[in-house]
């Protein structure tokens, strides 16, 4: 670039380029120059053979352009994982997407810029918008998508290619896969407006592919060819223009609220873990305790999302919750001070009144006398305990799950467990969505009592034309058979395609 400038000024009295992007050096893991003579060289071919060009591109283009790029196999694997998720999304669409009978073209062309169709499209779009019953998660995803389009456009205009790569990647891994798809699958299973899920994913993924074409051109094209080509008229994803940013979809409040809710859901999952309640078991109630009005509003507005993601029936929001203070001696702090008397000190602390002791330790002296022992704050751990609930903190409060499992919910949970096994077996048998099956589930009495009355539910969940739950295994000719462990029960399942 120096020589270009020098020659340009000599020849034409001007700098011969309008923008310059500087990039860093490609170095090995230790920051050393990578070369054959130094013995730290990794040939490009090796990377391409192992993970492919898209992965190489996703990896190197995610690195801040002007910083040195340190070679790292783990990071390359990580980039590959993100693309595998995209590839899974394609198979999901293949299996799940049902084209609406007539509007498909119109939605497909949602943000193309062909001006001829523009007016016609606008009309169809408006009609379509009105008719679509968006769930809150759908609105959120469309908001996130448009935020992403705006960001990627800005970053590309500024030549910050790494920001584009990172944001697309984050969108696929976090927003689409970890969040939306999870909710979507439950909504589809529950029959809650699956057409909208289908429509939204169709639109969102198409835009994502266009955003990703400059970063990972092969997989974007492949997704287009394998899935979109039959719904759209162009020969290549690269023949479409850049997705258009539509500000009306952007809802920053909703995006913020969803972020807080995500934190709550993580806290709830931690709380479940501490109480040893599996995520698959439905819980009757959670209580979000927060003094923040924003967090409270988020939990109220998005209680439906919390219900789906945290697998609960009811979400309550409170400013505070009745709780008891409990305490525990911290043995590691007692040992060094009290030596052989540490055990005695611990016993003494356990017998102390938590409320009184806490007050004393938080007092001016920052210490308290328990029996003959002088106790300092770090020797005692206090905890707020709410009877019947397990809690875990998030940034703006604490989220509690009710620990008692009620019979109805448990029976529902068990039925779900059984369904899950049957679904796995369907997969093993290579069955597709529309194939019907005949099923027999046999198990001991206790479990039988829990799932017997849910035969119908299970049958519709797993697409069984015939389903029987019994204590003794029933004969089905040429059945696929398997024994499963569900909690402490052994269950035998027999399936045949009909």
């Amino acid at each position, binding site marked *: *670039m*120096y*020589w*270009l*400038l*020098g*020659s*340009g*000024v*000599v*020849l034409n*009295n*001007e*700098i*011969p*380029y*309008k*923008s*310059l*992007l*500087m*990039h860093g*050096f*490609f170095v090995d893991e230790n920051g050393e120059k990578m070369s054959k003579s130094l013995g730290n060289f990794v*040939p*490009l*071919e090796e990377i*391409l*053979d192992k993970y*492919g*060009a*898209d992965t*190489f*591109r996703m990896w*190197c*283009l995610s690195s801040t*352009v*002007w910083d040195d*790029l340190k070679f790292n196999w783990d990071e390359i694997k990580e980039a*590959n994982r993100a*693309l*595998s998720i995209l590839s899974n999304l394609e198979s999901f669409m293949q299996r799940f997407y049902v084209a609406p009978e007539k509007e498909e073209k119109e939605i497909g062309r949602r943000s193309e810029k062909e001006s001829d169709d523009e007016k016609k499209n606008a009309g169809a779009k408006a009609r379509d918008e009105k008719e679509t019953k968006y769930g809150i998660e759908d609105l959120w995803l469309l908001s996130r998508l448009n935020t992403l389009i705006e960001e990627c456009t800005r970053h*590309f205009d*500024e*030549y*910050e*290619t790494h920001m*584009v790569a990172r944001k697309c990647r984050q969108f696929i891994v976090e927003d689409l896969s970890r969040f939306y798809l999870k909710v979507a699958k439950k909504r589809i299973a529950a029959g809650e407006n699956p057409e909208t899920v289908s429509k939204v994913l169709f639109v969102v993924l198409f835009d994502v592919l*266009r955003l990703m074409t*400059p970063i*990972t*051109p*092969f997989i974007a*094209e*492949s997704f287009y*060819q394998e899935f979109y080509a039959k719904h759209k008229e162009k*020969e*290549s994803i*690269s023949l479409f*223009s850049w997705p258009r940013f539509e500000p009306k979809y952007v809802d920053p409040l909703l995006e913020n609220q969803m972020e807080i809710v995500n934190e709550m859901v993580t806290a709830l999952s931690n709380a479940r873990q501490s109480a040893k309640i599996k995520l698959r078991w439905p819980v009757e109630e959670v209580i979000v305790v927060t003094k923040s009005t924003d967090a409270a509003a988020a939990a109220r507005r998005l209680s439906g999302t919390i219900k789906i993601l945290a697998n609960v029936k009811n979400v309550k929001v409170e400013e505070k919750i009745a709780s008891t203070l409990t305490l525990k001696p911290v043995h590691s702090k007692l040992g060094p001070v009290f030596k052989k008397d540490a055990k005695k000190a611990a016993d003494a602390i356990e017998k102390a009144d938590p409320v009184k002791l806490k007050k004393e330790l938080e007092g001016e002296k920052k210490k308290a006398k328990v029996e003959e022992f002088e106790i300092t704050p770090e020797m005692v751990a206090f905890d707020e305990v709410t009877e019947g609930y397990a809690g875990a903190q998030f940034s703006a409060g604490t989220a509690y799950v009710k620990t008692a499992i009620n019979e109805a919910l448990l029976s529902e949970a068990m039925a779900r467990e059984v369904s899950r096994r049957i679904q796995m077996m369907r997969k093993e048998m290579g069955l597709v969505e529309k194939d019907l099956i005949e099923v027999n589930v046999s198990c001991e009495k206790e479990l039988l009592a829990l799932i017997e009355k849910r035969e119908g539910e299970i049958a519709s969940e797993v697409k069984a034309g015939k389903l029987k739950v019994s204590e003794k295994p029933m004969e089905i000719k040429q059945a696929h058979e398997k024994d499963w462990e569900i909690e402490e029960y052994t269950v035998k399942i027999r399936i045949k395609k009909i």
Partner: protein
Amino acid sequence: MYDHNSLEKKITHYWEHKKIYEKVKESNGKGERFYFCDGPPYATGQIHPGTAWNKCIKDSVCRYKRARGFNVRAQPGFDTHGLPIEVKVEQELKLTCKKDIEKIGVKKFTENCKTFATKYVGIMGKQFQRCGVWMDWDAPYLTYKDSFIDRSWGTIKKAEEKQLLEKGVYVLPYCPRCETTMANYELEYGEQTDPSIYVKFKVKGKENEFLIVWTTTPWTLVANMAVMAHPMYEYVYAKVDGETWIVAKERLDHLTAIINPIQGGSSATVLKTVSGKKLDGLQYEHPLQSKIGKEADRKIVMSDEFVTLEEGTGLVHTAPGHGPQDFIIGKRFGMEIFCPVNEQGKYSSEAGEYAGKAVREANPQVIEDLEHAGMLVHQGKVSHRYPHCWRCKTPLIYISTLQWFIKISKTKEKMLQEIETIKWQPDFAKTRFKEFVSSAPDWCISRQRYWGIPLPIWECEKENCGKYKVIGSAAELPHRVELHRPFVDELHFTCECGGKMSRIKDVLDVWFDSGNAIWASLGEKEEYMTANFITEG
């Protein structure tokens, strides 16, 4: 993990089969022009993952611009000239020096260079395409093409017209194996062990008085013309072993410790202390006068920028023909730029008894001669960073040679102004670049090699004429030939004086090639235009 192998193969095939790249270009044909200029990689072998990274960044921007409707000009380039390729071809043909090249013939050599570069153009192109890089792979620009050379010559002509082209003697790094000058940006520093010696220079007219100097390049002592002292430092006359030594006061302890480490240093008695200024003009005798023969008025000169107290003795051996700093001082004080070294890196006949010896290999003999003359105070070893040839790794030497320059010093101000007019990403690139430009010396563009853009300069051979002619395009040649050595060397002009004009045998610095890429890569029908975007490391 998904099956990337079959996926990418399938898509590559699809793109080729359906001519998708061409269709995308076509659909944007009427769009606003976006000229991306590819900084060309060297066509010397398989691509480095870093080069692939560079190309993928470029590709992602071009793909984005296409999606935004721009008519993107994305022609890939290859750097096909220069030492990187010459050195590889020398290895292939088992040649070790320029004499070997002349023996097989310049024509055969440059033909081989061309074949070599062309071979990798294809291989590298395939590798870039495997990375998904969408550029005009069927029409890359190659710096060795006549059209490229032709357009580059225009820049030299323009420099001549603007009086920015100049011939001059400069002290520059020089590779004795490749037998060519190097620019500072072509040096590679590596750790190397060299002699570290302390030498006595006898003060003229004083029986027992000596300047003590230090050097790690004993061979340059042959061309010693002066000693530098700092006007503000204090120097001492010290009695050591019955002699009087002159050194910087702060370096005396260091010196005595070195020459007699066992006794914790020779005892030195300070006789008097003077300021450096007082030493100005003090004459001394060359310690190897009888061997070298070269007569000169050798004396102490003042320099406040090149004398330090961090190492040595505070008195600095100065050979204006063998060091850039020495050169500056030599010019300043009107010394002869004495350089008794020829193009092969051997002492010339001006070096007296040393004539014919390769200079770095003469170090032991110089030391031995100094010892015999009783002028060696101490010899040891030093491990330091030393510049090497970027291609063949030979340790470089500094010699003064006659070279062609573009006077960057005269265009610098304009260059700095121009820097302000464009977009830099990131911001600090601009700051860094401005610093680089501010401190850049004049650009030495001539190289004494074979495979490169021939310097379009013809000089009159008649003695004392001194005229030369610069041409700005191939059309000005007496007739058309391939624009390479040796073909252009065979063309001559007639001087106004009637003398025969022959081309200067030099080729251009290979960085000049990429420096001209923005216009030299354009097709015949394309007008000059500035590039919208470039990216480089």
